[in-house]
């Protein structure tokens, strides 16, 4: 195999892997596989550095998870709302590409080797310090730093020649202090070249000086902005790489020394990410571009392209893209010079705008060099092209961030989703691995070098970056504006317009959250929550910018800012800054959810009550009423007023899927009444067999039963509970004679339900055995020891022969001697007949010794009865019946005695 074929095979394997990843949509599996298998296989690669190992693993994890996420994401684009869905997808794809690009940059590679062929110290060195309006108080320290660096260099290499040149553009720009600059140059004994006519901005200024000084051919040119003070060893470090004749320039980092100003501190964190993390990676691919200052350039290289380009706002970047096909670049890490960062937010945004417009304009003019092959194959290498593409497109991130803000707002406010067909679990399955991997990989690389402040500042630049993108795309001409190196307190204090876009975005987020709190669409709960999370995330980021804006507006320096307790940590160097926003996010999220789900049930801390043993008091039963659900709240007080007493027990029927109605039982408790619940095992929309006795006995309803038991236990007061009503008849679903049930099933089901309640420590329940015919229930009844109360229902229908209450009660007492009884009565018929029958009931009650309660079944017992049907069955259907009931009530206990 030749080397070319081997390369091809490697590429083929990688492509196959990528193809397979996109095809299979394995989600988190691939990330996990990369993490675990990759770590294991690292043992085969003889990599000795743990940092390199971790970087390899993390970068690959980001790669596979990003591919998987994008592949999945393409399948859930909501094409119906393409106008928001496609931009969001493109924004995400852009984000993914840059995340991958970041990892590609960091991928461990061997340092490019230098091939020394000459002694560069023999070359003349020209140090250019372009200045326009910075003033001598800024320039003088720079000059003194340069001279110190020169002296150190000359001390080491006495034969060397170093010329320091101040490139004074103040006169051409009508800056007030340009003469002072000349005087300063004379004072420190350096050359000063003052232009009379402007042109070409900073590049023109340098080129003018370069030509006048003869800094061409074999010379080396060091460039410092007026505020950039070099360290003593600057030239000692930067000149030596030129021993390799292929080296075109040596770039060093750009750091700020005025970090007591919050804006400069945040900007410094952003700069650090670029110079300490990204540039070393670019360097390993020979792709570090000239950054305009703190750089040494081979004059011959500049000569080749006719000097620094003067038609660009970022002349350095434009020059690099033209030089890189032929010349190599070197980046030297470490701090070799420090400068002044922007002192106000407005100045920072101005700087960003200049860089963005400049870089994007270069992209517009030079995209061919990046993406197309060079003439006769002399273009840039693959890695260089990638790096320039990443650098050029970086400034589109403002558009990306705006779409990130807008998309969830559109969904929350207008209900228009950008994603369709994605479940929450699928979203997490594909997105979380990517997000977690990329965050971990990023912070692993950036830890201790940058901070979240840099990220926040980058995000906050989105309005100016969008403006810049539009400017660059439309090709509008923009003048070169030097970033001010001094803070104009008065101007900073009155300027706040640059924060208007952030304010608008924040207000829109608030509106969206407000809409979210009003939205109770449970079908889309997951999507709503995800969107709300992103809105909150945007708000936290925007809040960070506002904090910085406030600090800027107040003119506070970082050291004063510590006094502000809430935002004091903003200026501290560590990531502790992340705490307030994250806490804020958590509070906001909790608050929103609380407002939305304000009906959260609280569980009382009631202790487990004593076992509920229903009492019997001969001739003095409790009085109760059983109400259909439609009359539950309205009828009880009416009846109590008519009877002149309060009911001691109120009954109702509920289904197993219902909640234990805590509000209702609490209301009963305040009136001194107890609930009696008849629990049916029917479930709306459920199959008939789900309600069968074997289903109950075999545990199909255990979850619901445990819920009921827990809620009743937490209620803490006595509850009567009837299960399996009329189990001896075929008209109920949980029947022992139909629906798959047999009489032997009753005992199993009854025992099972009681056991569940016992396990849940719901001992405040009296179990009501309620067959249709309790007198002849021997075939069905559970053991007596498991029954607390037996129910006798005497329901008298019009036009039928009504049962004799005394006989029925006597028969039941014989069947269940000494067992507490519930007597439920109801009748519909002629007033006289009904009243007479109720009087018979009263008489029967007086003779029966073990009646625990007599309850009137208010309302029609017929299934699906209408509201109008209930009137005839009411205890107050007529005055005679009401009077008869009053007599029963007088004999009954209308308030429960304390049985605790």
């Amino acid at each position, binding site marked *: *195999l030749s*080397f070319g074929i*081997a*390369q091809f*095979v*490697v590429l083929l*394997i990688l492509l*196959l*892997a990528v193809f*397979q990843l996109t095809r*299979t949509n*394995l989600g988190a*599996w*691939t990330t*996990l*596989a990369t993490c*675990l*298998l*990759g770590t*294991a*296989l690292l*043992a*085969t*690669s*003889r*990599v000795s550095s743990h940092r390199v190992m971790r970087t*390899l693993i993390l970068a690959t994890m980001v790669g596979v998870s990003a591919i998987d996420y994008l592949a999945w994401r393409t399948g859930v684009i909501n094409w119906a709302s393409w106008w928001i869905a496609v931009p969001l997808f493109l924004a995400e794809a852009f984000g993914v590409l840059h995340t991958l690009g970041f990892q590609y940059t960091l991928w*461990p590679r061997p340092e490019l080797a230098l091939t020394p062929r000459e002694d560069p110290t023999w070359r003349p060195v020209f140090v250019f310090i372009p200045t326009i309006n910075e003033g001598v108080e800024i320039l003088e320290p720079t000059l003194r730093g340069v001279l110190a660096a020169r002296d150190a260099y000359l001390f080491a290499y006495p034969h060397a020649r170093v010329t320091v040149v101040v490139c004074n553009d103040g006169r051409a720009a009508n800056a007030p202090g340009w003469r002072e600059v000349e005087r300063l140059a004379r004072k420190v004994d350096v050359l000063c070249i003052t232009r009379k006519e402007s042109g070409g901005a900073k590049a023109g200024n340098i080129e003018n000086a370069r030509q006048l000084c003869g800094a061409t051919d074999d010379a080396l040119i060091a460039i410092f902005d007026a505020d950039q003070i070099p360290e003593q060893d600057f030239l000692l470090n930067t000149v030596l790489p030129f021993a390799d004749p292929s080296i075109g320039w040596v770039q060093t980092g750009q750091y700020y020394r005025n970090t007591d100003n919050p804006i400069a501190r945040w900007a410094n964190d952003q700069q650090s990410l670029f110079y300490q993390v990204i540039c070393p990676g670019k360097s390993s691919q020979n792709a570090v571009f000239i950054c305009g200052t703190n750089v040494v350039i081979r004059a011959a290289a500049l000569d080749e392209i006719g000097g620094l380009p003067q038609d660009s706002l970022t002349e350095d970047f434009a020059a690099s893209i033209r030089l890189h096909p032929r010349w190599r670049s070197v980046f030297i890490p470490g701090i070799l010079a420090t400068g002044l960062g922007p002192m106000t937010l407005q100045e920072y945004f101005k700087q960003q705008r200049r860089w963005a417009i400049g870089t994007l304009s270069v992209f517009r003019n030079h995209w061919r060099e990046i993406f197309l092959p060079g003439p006769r194959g002399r273009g840039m290498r693959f890695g260089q092209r990638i790096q320039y593409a990443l650098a050029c497109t970086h400034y589109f991130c403002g558009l990306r961030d705006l779409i990130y803000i807008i998309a969830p707002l559109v969904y929350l406010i207008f209900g228009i989703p950008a994603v369709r067909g994605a479940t929450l679990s699928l979203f997490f399955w594909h997105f979380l691995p990517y997000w977690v991997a990329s965050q971990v990989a990023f912070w692993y690389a950036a830890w201790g070098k940058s901070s979240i402040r840099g990220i926040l500042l980058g995000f906050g630049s989105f309005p100016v970056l969008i403006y810049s993108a539009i400017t660059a795309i439309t090709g509008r001409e923009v003048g070169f504006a030097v970033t001010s190196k001094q803070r104009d307190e008065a101007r900073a204090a009155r300027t706040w317009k640059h924060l208007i876009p952030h304010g608008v975005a924040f207000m829109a987020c608030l509106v969206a959250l407000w809409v979210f709190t009003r939205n109770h669409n449970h079908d889309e709960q997951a999507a709503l929550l995800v969107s709300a999370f992103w809105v909150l995330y945007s708000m936290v980021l925007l809040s960070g910018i506002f904090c910085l804006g406030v600090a800027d507006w107040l003119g506070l320096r970082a050291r004063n800012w510590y006094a502000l307790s809430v935002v004091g940590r903003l200026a501290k160097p560590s990531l502790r800054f992340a705490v307030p926003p994250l806490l804020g996010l958590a509070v906001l999220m909790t608050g929103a959810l609380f407002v939305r789900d304000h009906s959260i049930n609280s569980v009382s801390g009631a202790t487990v009550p004593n076992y509920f043993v229903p009492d019997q008091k001969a001739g003095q039963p409790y009085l109760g009423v059983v109400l259909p659900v439609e009359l539950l709240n309205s009828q009880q007080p009416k009846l109590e007023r008519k009877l002149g007493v309060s009911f001691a027990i109120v009954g109702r029927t509920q289904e197993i899927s219902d909640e234990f109605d805590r509000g209702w039982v609490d209301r009963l408790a305040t009136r001194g009444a107890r609930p009696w619940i008849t629990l049916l095992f029917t479930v709306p929309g459920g*199959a*008939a*067999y*789900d309600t*069968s006795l*074997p*289903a109950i*006995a*075999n545990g*199909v309803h255990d979850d619901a039963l445990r819920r009921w038991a827990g809620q009743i236990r937490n209620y803490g007061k006595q509850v009567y509970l009837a299960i399996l009503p009329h189990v001896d*008849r*075929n*008209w109920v679903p949980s029947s022992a*004679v*139909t629906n*798959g049930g*047999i009489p*032997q099933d009753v005992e*199993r089901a009854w025992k099972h339900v009681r056991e569940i309640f016992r396990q849940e420590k719901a001992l405040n329940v009296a179990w009501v055995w309620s067959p*249709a*015919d309790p*007198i002849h229930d021997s075939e069905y009844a559970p053991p007596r020891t498991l029954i607390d109360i037996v129910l*006798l*229902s*005497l*329901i*008298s*229908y019009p036009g*039928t*022969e009504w*049962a*004799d209450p005394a006989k029925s009660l006597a028969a039941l007492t014989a069947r269940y001697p000494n067992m507490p009884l519930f007597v439920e009565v109801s009748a519909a018929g002629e007033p006289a007949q009904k009243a007479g029958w109720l009087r018979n009931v009263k008489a029967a009650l007086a003779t029966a010794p073990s009646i625990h309660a007599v309850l009137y079944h208010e309302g029609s017992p017929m299934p699906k009865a209408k509201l109008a049907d209930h009137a005839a069955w009411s205890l107050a259907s007529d005055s005679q019946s009401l009077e008869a009931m009053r007599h029963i009530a007088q004999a009954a206990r209308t308030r429960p005695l304390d049985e605790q």
Partner: protein
Amino acid sequence: MILVFQSIVSLSLSNTAFQDEALYLYSGRQLFNHLLGGPPVTEPYGQYFAGLIYVHPLLIGALDSIGGIEAARLLSLGCMLLATTSVYLVAKHLFDRDSALLAAALFAVQGVVLYLGRFATFDAMCVSLVGVATVLAVRGDKTSSSRYGLIVGAVLGLAVATKFAALLFAPGVIAILVWQTWRAHGWRQAFLRAVLTASLVATAMIIPAVLDKDVLIGLTKTTTERVAIIRMPRLDIALRAASLGGILVAMAVIGIFITTITTINDRKHFLVGLVLLGSTLLAPAYHIYKTEIVSLQKHVVFSMFFAAPLAGFAVMRFSRYVANRVISRQWLVTLSVCLLVFSLGIGQAQSLFSEWPNSARLIRVMLTQVRPSGRILAEESEVPRYYLQDIVAFWQWNQLYWFYYTDRHGKQLSGVEAYRAAIAEGYFDLVLLRYGPNVDVAHAIDEGLKDPTRYELIAKIPYNTAFGPGNYWLWRKRQPNAGQSGDSTAIF
């Protein structure tokens, strides 16, 4: 890391018990309970089990009684992790640590390996024991004691006792032991070890067979004279085997080739490599010979075990060559190969693990119908029988494989006639069909179920498998009209 990953992926596979698992777990519980003084075992399981009933079934029965099917499946996972470790040790001894790591990784991400690590049958334990025996065999050159053959024989004997099919691989393992011993310690030692190992393997079969005649019946019925349950053309079986493990076998072939062209150190293992490659082909060859497709996916794992060391060696040499000594590139190549194999493997494992219907919904519905009395006719009765064993007794279950019935006229019937008569006479309280493995019988007997006076269809429970959707059909015997619709206007 590899073992952790294998565990996580295996544990992610989810389905209710497969028919065989349910059978082994149920029988294991019975055996375990019997050993603890419980009732005797109700069926002669030894007559149709492919291994000794007092080895794996008993073990998973004990585990099932502690932690249910999950505990039993954990045993399989542990065994497969042991098998992966064995692959590593074999490859490390024959080649180098890098090849061993890659071999283990490639083996661990095979679909059938992931699947078997979550499957509570004999196979995982058998693979792991064969694996341990192979490790011992390749390390035969490291120790000079002739008793070493006893250790290898004990492990190999246990493997055979676990599953009779391990006999197929015993010659290969013994051959490796002989070769490794001969190279290091001479032919006498090699011969002695071979005799000791073979004797122990034979003893592991002969003693149980003498003590329990069922063992011999089981061995012949399930292994040596097995009659194919589901026949398939030989080419289809070969293609199926290739789709399950072809990539690894292909890599192993390349590995053998590389041993012939590389360093002397690699070349001296050429013969062992050939034995490994030969053992790789045994399981598919057996299935092709028997024209039997059943259990191929489980037996292919044996092939994977023997192929993996060679495959790891091949990929490692290949990656070193094509990466041109760039470390990160070599790592990326090996990782990409593993990810590629894994992406195929996990899909395969998930597909294999969904070849049978998830019975959760069925069991949920059956819970609404069953009680400790009444008879149930169920296709694949092993599954509901296992899940409902706390409610439904053994005698209540009937299945579609065989059935004897004496009708009300005293006529003794068997097969389809017996089912029909029993259904006509309402013998079964519940009938469960899914028209699956016993589709012919199911169709032959379901006519009587369609008579509304006898049975009512109470549930049609849909399911999905890798082969497509289907339904469970559950009939209940119609109850005599015992319902009382209100015989009193006064009391109800």
